[in-house]
């Protein structure tokens, strides 16, 4: 999930860096204010610890994944849950990513902003609030941590795919499907590991997790968060499948079959494409238009496909919503 240099155009890379910096500054402020100076060494050492955790090879022999590509635990959800703030994850993962980028070349320098957003901000916030809300509603830390762990891997992977798609370096469908499926499985491991790790920590050092005890907030507000996260989840889960109805290859065969394009040159006439779809609909008697309002995302001139944007937009809105709501809640306390 570490986007290397060169895969994001410089303008977008800078954009992500700016967003990331906002969160880094926020997390620094959090480190200073809420945790006071005493936590700075703690967080620094924990960052090294999370780095060590990330090196634990989690390449379980899941034969589902061809080639047995290895993955490792990100640990963002765990850090956020145990330290009681998503900013802890942002802070720690930023340090980890800086080191990985500058020292190992794992994840680029220009693309580091995007990586921080994915693995620090999104993983931390989604992990934390998923855990909080599920735990508040169902009072089950174990499952809450499991789902939080899963989400903290899955959502960033989807967003990472979207970022690559927006950059135009990877087709959206391919990115979403491959990243989504792969990380849905990896997420199970992350979830399991997060849940068991948390249960051990609660047993051995309950005082660490103490600050996290379910906030006595209004149930309604928590329900909103749960609902928000559920919707985000739903989008996230269905997005790849939705998009996968358009794998490139399938798409182009379909189009060539209806004579929109010849087999050697892909130069698609958009009006013909629409006509072809209509023709298919007539032939199959299926009037349900499963095409998004925008036809193919590989069309020249149409760089930002609407549905990809829609996913990004949806995720961001929910994210901001969740964050805002939780802010309101915490301020009341």
């Amino acid at each position, binding site marked *: 999930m570490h986007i290397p240099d060169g895969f994001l155009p410089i303008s977008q890379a800078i954009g992500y860096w700016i967003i990331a910096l906002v969160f880094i500054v926020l997390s620094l402020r959090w480190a200073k204010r809420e945790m006071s100076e005493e936590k700075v060494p703690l967080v620094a050492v924990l960052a090294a610890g999370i780095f060590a955790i990330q090196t634990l090879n989690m390449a379980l022999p899941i034969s589902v994944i061809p080639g047995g590509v290895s993955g490792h635990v990100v640990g963002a959800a765990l850090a956020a849950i145990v330290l009681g703030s998503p900013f802890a994850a942002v802070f720690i993962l930023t340090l980890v990513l800086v080191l990985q980028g500058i020292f190992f070349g794992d994840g680029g320098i220009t693309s580091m902003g995007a990586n921080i957003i994915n693995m620090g901000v999104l993983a931390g916030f989604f992990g934390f609030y998923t855990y909080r809300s599920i735990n508040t509603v169902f009072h089950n830390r174990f499952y809450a941590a499991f789902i939080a762990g899963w989400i903290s891997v899955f959502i960033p992977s989807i967003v990472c795919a979207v970022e690559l798609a927006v950059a135009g370096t990877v087709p959206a469908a391919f990115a979403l499907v491959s990243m989504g499926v792969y990380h849905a499985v990896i997420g199970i491991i992350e979830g399991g590991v997060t849940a068991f790790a948390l*249960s*051990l920590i609660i*047993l*051995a*050092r309950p005082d660490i997790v103490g600050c996290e005890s379910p906030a006595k907030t209004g149930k309604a507000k928590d329900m909103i968060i749960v609902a928000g996260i559920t919707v985000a989840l739903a989008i996230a889960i269905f997005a790849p499948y939705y998009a996968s109805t358009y794998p490139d290859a399938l798409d182009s065969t379909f189009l060539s079959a209806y004579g929109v394009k010849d087999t050697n040159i892909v130069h698609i006439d958009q009006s013909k494409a629409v006509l072809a779809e209509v023709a298919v609909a007539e032939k199959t008697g299926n009037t349900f238009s499963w095409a998004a309002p925008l036809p193919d995302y590989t069309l020249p001139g149409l760089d930002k496909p609407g549905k990809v944007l829609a996913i990004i937009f949806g995720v961001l809105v929910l994210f901001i919503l969740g964050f805002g709501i939780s802010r309101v809640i915490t301020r009341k306390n």
Partner: protein
Amino acid sequence: MHLIETRNLTYIYPGNVTALHSVNFVAPRNARIAVIGSNGAGKSTLFKCFNGIFKPTSGSVLIRGEPITQDNIREVRKFVGIIFQNADDQIFSPTVEQDVAFGPTNLGLDEETIHHRVHEALKLVGIEDLAHRVPHHLSGGEKKRVAIAGVIAMEPEVLVLDEPTAGLDPRGVHDLITFINSLSKQYGMTVIFSTHDVSMVAEVADYVYVMNKGLFVAEGSVEDIFLQPDMLKSIRLDVPVLPKLIRSLQKNGVPIPMAYTYEDAEQALIRAYKGPQKDTPQ
């Protein structure tokens, strides 16, 4: 056939640190072997070669006469149990019982056997009552025992202990020494240990290897080794205080036989004073 034997074992860490240099080590059945040496001599590295955690850069390690291969590595690890210095590195589970069960479970034993072994192991190290405690809350000495129990539950025939007494209080050291001796006497186990505490060597070991900078510079019985104080001093070690004292007396013309353990030294001194009389009753 020896239980453990190394032949010209050389181990080089990535980064060209030669930690072991053509080392020949032999552990016969039912022996108590001490490996002593200064900080960085290579003791821990040697021990890690015994159960295939480190693969020799050159030379070989034979376990019951056979080299360690990918096929027999599980057997080897079951046969040679290692307890490292820091108990915290070896305890991962939420309860003592689960932690001790970790090894047997990995061996694929059935539940009943596991249960039986866990309780046998806990009984052996004397911490049955801690079975349901959280290991992270135990004292240093108790954690050490949990780590030992975790390895004993795999029923190894050779027990390797890396600096087992570090950080324990005098009573803890005494208990551990008694425990190691009983393993050897009652269960016929072979025990190999390293330590910086030379007086422990005299109390526990039958045979001593002296390491320096990745080489064995001497080996032999406790007597052989502690007869060479200058050699020991030159490699940052020392003779235990009792033989040192007796040697000094001998040099000063006191007719007294050499002794290494506390009891022997006491008897020797008393006899030397009283002359050739009858044994003094305790």
